[in-house]
Each structure stands twice: as structure tokens, then as C-alpha cells.
């Protein structure tokens, strides 16, 4: 069973969002800040359990006392555009507005790009820019729930266009990295978010959550205080094995966001139709791209096969063909 590897610490209620949720838009500097005591507890917990930390920063620097504590633990800083050039070891989160203002990606080579569906049209320009710099884009779509039939077909077209760009820029061993198209080329098993399994989140209230999204949804979603024995009730539902839809799926690049699952279907382990179709559009585009890359003698995806499927939502298969008891027992995450 995979184990806890890292901790996400939200430094302030208005810290940057790096995923499928919105953080508090504004926050009074002090009011929204995690208390020094709680930060201390969280850092000590990480140190004692060999966890790395992802610190989520607000638009301002947290002050010397805090920064000293932050430096005590192995970590990555995830910062908004405003702090883009400030730290050398940070990953910047960009929103559509940040790109429009500067018309280019600056400050960092590895970025998290958060876009909503109407904003996706700026994606090809961003990909070109990042490819030029040899960086990586992690795209996060902010409104997965809106991906009905027409948005899915627009998304497919966009994926085809970006695949074309990437193929052009690829060499024998390398290709510019964008999570939604190139991750699947490198993966042989699921690479999901795994909230609650490989990582937990400490919020500004000092308590633990499965991920920041659950905190921003409601403080009632807390799974408890920071302590040595963490007991997540019904934890098995976070595991791939206990998701009847996802365990038969090979869209390995999918985030399999348990927060969106819970919001849209009511269950942590059951993905929405929108999520599955979006990930399958990506999977199919990766497959088509792989064919083209093979023609160019691309060696970077050696041994990877992406078979054509007759469906775009594994739910259809999960409903028809029940997993056997033996398959379940043999399942190895």
C-alpha cells in the first residue's frame, strides 16, 4: 500500500490555488495566516515522518520568522505570479490573466497553468512559449464540471492542434512536456493525485484535510488534528482498488481527483462523466501522437502502447462487466 510522502501546507487563506478549487480571493495578511505554532507543529510532523512539504504561498512573503521555519524542512514553494521571480526554487501558478498581461510565460520554466474552458484558447501560445524554454506545463482545468458534449469536442480539436506543435518540437529522445498529452507517453501505471494516500494538507486552521479543496469547501471536512496516529475513516475509498470505474481504466495521466468525484457524484471513489471523458480525450490524443512520434523514430516512449478503445467513459464498461472476485483479490495498486 502506498504511504504518505508529502504534506501540503497552506500558509494563508488567500494562498494560491494550484488545483481544482478556488482559494479565498482576498485575505487580510495576518488574519488569514496559519499561526506560527501550527506551522511549527506541521513542520515538525513533516520532519518526524520523512515528509517533503509543498508550501502554498499567498501574494506576499510570509515574514522572516516564518521563512526560517520553512527552510528547516525539505520543500517546494508554490507561489502566485506576483512572487514569480522572488524564490529560485519555486513553482509558479499562472492564471489566464497573468499570461494576457505579459503575453508570455516568465519567471519560471515549470509552471502550473490554471484555465477555465473559455480560456483554453490561449493554450497553444503558452505551449509554444514553454517549449521554446524547454520547460513543462501542468495544466489544471478549473471547470471540469462544464465539459459536456460540445466542450469535449472542442477540447479534442485543441488537443490535436497542440499535439501537432509538440511533434514538431520533438527530437529523438525528447518532447516538450505538457501533462495532459505527454505524461501518458511515459506512464505504465496510474499516476493519480492520491490525496489522502501519498499526501495530506495542513490548512491555516492548523487541522488536517485530504487536500486544500476540502478545506475551502468546508472546515467540516477536516480529518482531524495533526497527531501521530492519523485515522482516515473509510480510507480504502481513496485507493484505486476500491473504485469500480477507475480500477479498470488506463488513462494513467488522469488526476482522478477525489474532490471532484465527491462534488459531482457524491462519492470519493466514483468519477464524473465529465472527468472520464476529458481524460479519455487526452488519452486518445496521446495515442495518436505516439503513432506520429514513432514514425519520427521517437525513442522517449519505448515500450508504451496506447490501444484504441471503443468507449470514452470506462463507466460504461464497469456497469456491463462486473469485476470478478478473484480479479479484485489479485489487484495490486
Amino acid at each position, binding site marked *: 500500500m502506498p504511504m504518505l510522502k508529502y504534506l501540503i501546507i497552506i500558509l494563508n487563506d488567500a494562498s494560491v490555488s494550484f488545483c481544482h478549487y478556488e482559494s479565498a480571493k482576498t485575505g487580510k495578511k495576518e488574519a488569514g495566516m496559519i499561526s506560527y505554532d501550527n506551522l511549527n507543529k506541521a513542520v515538525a510532523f513533516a520532519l518526524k515522518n520523512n515528509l517533503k512539504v509543498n508550501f502554498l504561498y499567498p501574494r506576499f512573503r510570509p515574514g522572516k520568522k516564518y521563512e526560517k521555519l520553512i527552510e528547516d524542512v525539505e520543500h517546494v514553494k508554490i507561489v502566485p505570479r506576483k512572487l514569480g521571480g522572488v524564490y529560485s526554487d519555486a513553482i509558479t501558478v499562472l492564471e489566464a490573466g497573468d499570461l494576457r498581461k505579459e503575453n508570455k510565460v516568465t519567471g519560471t520554466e515549470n509552471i502550473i497553468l490554471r484555465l477555465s474552458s473559455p480560456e483554453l484558447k490561449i493554450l497553444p501560445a503558452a505551449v509554444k512559449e514553454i517549449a521554446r524554454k524547454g520547460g513543462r506545463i501542468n495544466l489544471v482545468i478549473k471547470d471540469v464540471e462544464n465539459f459536456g458534449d460540445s466542450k469535449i469536442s472542442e477540447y479534442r480539436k485543441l488537443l490535436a492542434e497542440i499535439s501537432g506543435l509538440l511533434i514538431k518540437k520533438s527530437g529523438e529522445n525528447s518532447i516538450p512536456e505538457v501533462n495532459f498529452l505527454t505524461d501518458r507517453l511515459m506512464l505504465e501505471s496510474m499516476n493519480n493525485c492520491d490525496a489522502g494516500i501519498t499526501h495530506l494538507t495542513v490548512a491555516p486552521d492548523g487541522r488536517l484535510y485530504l487536500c486544500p479543496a476540502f478545506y475551502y469547501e468546508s472546515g467540516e471536512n477536516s480529518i482531524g488534528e495533526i497527531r501521530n496516529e492519523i485515522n482516515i*475513516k*473509510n480510507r480504502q*475509498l481513496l485507493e484505486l482498488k*476500491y*473504485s*469500480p*470505474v477507475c480500477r479498470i481504466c488506463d488513462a494513467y495521466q488522469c488526476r482522478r481527483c477525489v474532490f471532484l468525484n465527491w462534488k*459531482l*457524484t*457524491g*462519492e*470519493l*471513489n*466514483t*468519477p*464524473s*462523466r*465529465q472527468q472520464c471523458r476529458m481524460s479519455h480525450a487526452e488519452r486518445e490524443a496521446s495515442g495518436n501522437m505516439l503513432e506520429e512520434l514513432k514514425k519520427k523514430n521517437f525513442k522517449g516512449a519505448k515500450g508504451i502502447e496506447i490501444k484504441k478503445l471503443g468507449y470514452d467513459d470506462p*463507466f460504461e464498461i*464497469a*456497469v456491463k462487466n*462486473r*469485476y*470478478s*472476485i478473484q480479479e*479484485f*483479490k489479485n489487484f495490486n495498486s
Partner: protein
Amino acid sequence: MSQNTTVKIDRPGSWEDGRAKNVTFVVTEDCQLACRYCYLVGKNKSGRMNFETAKKAVDYLLREEKFLAEKSVVLDFIGGEPLLEIELIDKICDYFKLKSYELNHPWFDSYRISFSTNGLMYSDKRVQEFIRKNKTHLSIQITIDGTKVKHDTQRVYPDGRGSYDNVLKNIRLWTSQFPETSTKVTISGDDIPYIKESVLHIWSLGIKEVNINAVFEDAWKPGDDELFEEQLTELADEIIEKKLYKEYTCSFFSRTIGHPYEQNVNWCGAGKMLAFDFKGDIYPCIRFIEFSLQNRKGIIVGNLDKGIDENRLRPFLTLDMVSQSPDECINCDVASGCAWCQGANYDFAETGTIFRRATYICKMHKARVRANNYFWNKLGRRLKTDLRETNPDTCQC
């Protein structure tokens, strides 16, 4: 597999073999009784369906092509006590017949109307008129829990008086109108010592099929399982000695229970069935309506204005046995027939999920399996044939 056609005890009749779409109309949340085991914790006088909402529900059912996968429909009227709303039910059924005829819908001549009632209003003129009009399409179950003592332990008026005498008055009329009928008995703890005499009593009233459930709640005390086993064993002896197995059916005894799991199927049909409440909200089954739940909010999967949110149904339609069962259940040697109810699971789970099976019933199931083995092995010896068989487990609900 051995067949012995003289043994009827585990061969209940079931219309369309469970292949019909089961649709529940919660016509009222009110009831004259206050049964001690009733799961409807939020009964009230205000939750009453109006005809406009019911019409919308019928229109919705007949309009949606996705429901055509099921060739038949069961219109189930439930409460509270459904017969309190017999006039409304009559109007809904007429509307269904008219609309399905106009639309040339396959359900027009493939439907059943079903109620489960406390029986207190059975002889009411309006109810009798409804029966006359719909008889060939109708299944009515009156709930009687057994002997007067057992029945009156649980099925009481709000002031604590037992309801047995008032129900009994209507039982004879009912069995004369529906000779092939059945009743449902619920066992919840204090009533275990009365099981044997209750089943025999119900049969003696002319009700030939008795379906019995032990409640899923954390209601069982140490020793209850032994008492239960004892009662069932005595009942088994009586059935064998008096050859009652030829004529009567009792769901306690079944050749399909007590085997390891062969298939990974869900027991319960929630989500494949649908329930409509008076507000026009749609639920995966009545047990997910707020007034049936003690600890959790209801699960609404849609409403009559916007239809069903398919995302909300996905958990119900993909839920299987392995994903909700503890390892102990998956590996259990006597697992088949060990029942669960999705609504009860959801209500009792530590987090708001349908993917966690409550297993309070475990010891009671094992007791039942032992008594069941006793029954079939002994009967097999008497009849000089092997009566055991295995079968996949699915629920008839």
C-alpha cells in the same frame, strides 16, 4: 443441481423475475401506526404528494427512452401508509393507463401496481372499489408480524395500543381476494422467541408466503443468534414433520444461502429503482429520502423539472459487492444470502458513503445458515434426495 418439485418452501413467486423497472411513489409521509422498528424516522402529516407532481412523474417515466431497457414497470405506492391516499393513487394509475395508451408505450400492458399496507383501511369502500377496478394488475401485501403477541410488540398505535385485532378483521377479506398473496415480517430483537409460532400462525391465516427480514441495525444482543437458531430449528422440524414444505413458502429457508460468494454483485437494487417524493425530487430508492434516515442527509439524484443527474447515479450503478465489503465478508464461507440494504449502509457508515457495508447482521446470518443447513440436510434425508444447490445472490427488492 437437484430439483424436487414437491418442495415449495423456497420458491416464492416474483413477477417478471425482477426484470421490471421498480418505481416508487411516496404518496404520503403519514401513517396511523408508530411501529417500533419502522425506519421512517421522520414521519409527518405535511409530506403529501399532489396530483400535479404525480402526473409529472408519470410523464417523465414515459418520456425518457433510457427507461425502455426494462420491458415492464412496477408502480409501487408507499408511505407512510399509502392507503391513506387511495383516491390520489387511483388518479395516478388512471393517468398512467391513459398516457401509456396514448403513447403506445410498451408498459401499457406490462405494468403492475403494488402496495405494502398496514391493512387498517383495507375494507374501506374506496379501497375495495380500487381493487375491483385494478385487480388483474395488483399486488397488495398486508404486513402482519405473526401472532397477536408478536405483532402487538412492534406494530402499535402512537398511544402504545397494539394493532393486531384491527388488522385481523381485514385479513380474511384480503386472502379471499388474493389467495396467492404474501406478507413481510421484520425481526428486530425482542420478538425472536415468537418466530416459530408467528410463521405457523401466518400460514394458518391462509397467507402462504412469508418473507422475513432481520433488521440491519445494530440491534442484536449477545445470545440473540442462539435464540434465533433455536427458533428456526424448531420451525424446520415442524415444517418437515407436518410436510408444510409442499404448500408454504418461507424466505428463511433457501437452498441458495450459506455458500461462499461466486459472483461480485450488489445485493440491493437502489439506483436501478427510482423513488419520487411529494416535492418532485428523485431518489435511488425510498431509503435515501431524508425521512428514512437517522444520521445522514437524503441523497437526491434529480428532480422532475431537470431530470436525473447521471453523475449522481454512477455510484449506485457501479457499486459491487467487493468494493463495499470488508475482507471478512469477501472471504466468508457462508456469505451467500447475507443481506444488506444500501440505505441502511449509508445511514450507519462512518462517512457519508454507500460504499461501506454494515455487518451488524453477521451473527444472525450465520445462525440462519446453520438452521437452514439443518433443514435441507434433514429434509433431503427424509425425501432421499440431495436438496442443496448454489445460486448467485441477488435481492428481490
